[in-house]
């Protein structure tokens, strides 16, 4: 049960592989250690610190590997199951970053609960492990396992505060639907396997099934079923129904975890799978992607209109965002794969930062409510006149919203620019139309948020004055503002790492 056991199978994996795999190994090692730690002493502070430490090390390790150059080129194959390339670890770094943010945000939230929360951090680490396996996977089996590891741990997390109103509902919704989705995905994998006899992503594309017409349909259905499972996780329309409810019901840091870690990991694996299997040559699949992308753009943005609950709104907006992001899957030739990766990673980074920022603000407000023992959700109206009371926080919020809306000066715009480039190269005009219209509709709910923040005469029920407001870590906020602004204006400084 412990990675150390694997030393005996040294023939299967050489030293280089261990080095390359080290971040993931570190993570799993950390999980085991934290189990031991819990057994030794149940202390929330220690476990939180410890898991943060593990994540930081994982982050540093993967960064180090990225810069060391081992990963350049096609990547390193570690057993048939995993294949690590630079994109995997770029995603992993993003995942670790957001996990760090989640943990630091969780501390506040957990403080208000009178219980020991060892399993919380354990589950988060398990989620991250699942995500790490996803981004590294090169095989349907590992993908499936990562997927399930992610979902099962998340099921544990979404209903974490068992006594809260929505806990059971959220947990059930997520459990049943994600099990359903994974069943569909598995059926798809079974279809693909029964036809190709190969469970690995790597495929000889010359003999790929879509080259023979009779087999194409069956294979396409298999791929479609597989895609539906992933699309469920990415909450793409029309598999999006769970998203708003689960977002709303889950503890806010966990919502952030779902919005970022789970989605980044799933999208990475989707790209890996698509590009390795050459699905971009499969017209059926491309049609499905376009349809799903358009639906997501439209449905996500439309549903977010007039939405008052911020967490639901974020759920809807993320539906739309992953609809946009699907554009990178529609590539015309193998040469543009590298560019597609860069686009996706840049976009995901922008998305990640915006989400972290917005959810951290949501959390500060939630904290405020729970301190005043008015347990309720954060609504748009609660943010009235924020700009005039908590300037830095409001600026960050505005920046993030603009980033999501794709307005210049923010990373979101550069991300969108990448997507437009991608779409123009592959000449997918439908997607461009969808992107344009979707952005247009999107503005109709992003802008009101900003206006609310700027509202001068606050008539909200809650007046959060300066003295009794919780102090969101100001350094954190300013750091986020500067980062997102800097990358928005000088995207080169980020994208040079995405090569």
């Amino acid at each position: 049960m412990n990675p150390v056991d694997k030393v005996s199978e040294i023939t299967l994996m050489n030293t280089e592989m261990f080095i390359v795999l080290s971040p993931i190994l570190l993570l799993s090692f950390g999980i085991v250690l934290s189990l031991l730690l819990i057994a030794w002493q149940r202390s929330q502070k220690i476990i939180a610190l410890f898991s943060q430490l593990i994540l930081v090390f994982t982050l540093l390790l993967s960064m180090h590997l990225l810069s060391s150059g081992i990963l350049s080129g096609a990547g390193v194959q570690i057993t048939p199951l995993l294949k690590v390339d630079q994109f995997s670890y770029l995603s992993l770094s993003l995942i670790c970053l957001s996990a760090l943010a989640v943990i630091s945000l969780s501390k506040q939230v957990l403080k208000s609960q009178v219980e020991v929360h060892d399993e919380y951090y354990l589950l988060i680490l398990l989620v991250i492990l699942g995500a790490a396996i996803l981004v590294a996977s090169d095989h349907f089996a590992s993908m499936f396992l990562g997927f399930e590891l992610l979902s099962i741990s998340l099921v544990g997390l979404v209903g974490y505060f068992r006594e809260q109103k929505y806990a059971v509902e959220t947990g059930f919704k997520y459990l049943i639907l994600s099990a359903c989705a994974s069943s569909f995905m598995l059926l798809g994998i079974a279809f693909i396997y029964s036809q190709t006899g190969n469970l690995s992503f790597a495929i000889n594309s010359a003999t790929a099934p879509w080259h023979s017409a009779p087999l194409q349909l069956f294979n396409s259905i298999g791929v479609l079923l597989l895609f539906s499972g992933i699309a469920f996780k990415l909450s793409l329309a029309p598999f999006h129904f769970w998203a708003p409810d689960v977002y709303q019901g889950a503890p806010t840091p966990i919502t952030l975890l779902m919005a970022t870690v789970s989605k980044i990991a799933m999208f990475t694996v989707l790209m890996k799978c698509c590009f390795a299997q050459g699905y971009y040559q499969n017209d059926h699949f491309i049609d499905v992607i376009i349809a799903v992308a358009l639906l997501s753009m439209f449905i996500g943005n439309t549903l977010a209109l007039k939405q008052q609950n911020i967490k639901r709104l974020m759920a809807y907006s993320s539906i739309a965002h992953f609809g946009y992001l699907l554009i990178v899957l529609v590539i015309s030739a193998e040469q543009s794969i590298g560019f597609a990766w860069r686009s996706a990673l840049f976009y995901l980074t922008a998305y990640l930062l915006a989400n972290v920022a917005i959810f951290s603000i949501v959390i500060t407000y939630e904290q405020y409510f729970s301190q005043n023992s008015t347990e309720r959700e954060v609504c748009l109206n609660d943010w009235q006149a924020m700009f005039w009371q908590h300037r830095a926080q409001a600026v960050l919020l505005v920046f993030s919203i603009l980033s999501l809306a794709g307005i210049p000066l923010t990373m979101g715009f550069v991300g969108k620019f990448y997507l437009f480039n991608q779409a123009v190269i592959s000449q997918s005009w439908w997607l461009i139309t969808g992107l344009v219209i979707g952005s247009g509709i999107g503005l109709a709910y992003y802008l009101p948020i900003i206006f609310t923040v700027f509202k001068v005469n606050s008539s909200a029920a809650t007046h959060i004055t300066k003295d009794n407001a919780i102090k969101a870590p100001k350094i954190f906020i300013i750091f986020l503002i500067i980062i997102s602004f800097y990358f928005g204006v000088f995207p080169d400084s980020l994208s040079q790492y995405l090569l």
Partner: protein
Amino acid sequence: MSRFASIEGLFYLAAIIAIVASLKVVTGKNTVHALLYLVISLLAVAVCFYLMGAPFAAGLEVIVYAGAILVLFVFAVMMFGLGIDEMHNAPQSKGLSLWAGPAFLGSLLLVELIFVIDNSELALQLNNQVVDAKQVGILLYGPYLLAVEISSFLLLAGLVAGYHYAKPEHRGGRL
């Protein structure tokens, strides 16, 4: 030929039993009955596995699935009195109207899948070579070694999550 025919016949018989049993599971009123039907279904599937040349999987099906997982179900039902509910509190599910929509949806999906499978001209057939436990073992502890490790984490996750939900409401402890 007749031997093959009988194997084939056995397979289809087992398949039909599995289908009927599954239907009974889905439509059942009594929780315990439904669970027992599920056991029957799993056993029938195990027979299928065996006939398809996967004796190891068939064994696992019986031991782990029927033996362990289903027992977990029965245990939970009995322990926490979960079975009463359906018989007393949910009479609505009798109505045909409740079934009509989902059944239609299901049959639509089924028709599509069968259409696709039928039209795909998969000229593949099973052969009688048995993929035995050794092969499975070699593969499992060879290339799939990491999968085993990961599935251990999966079980751990299930364990922790299950523990978290099931543990009694408990206050106190050091923060």
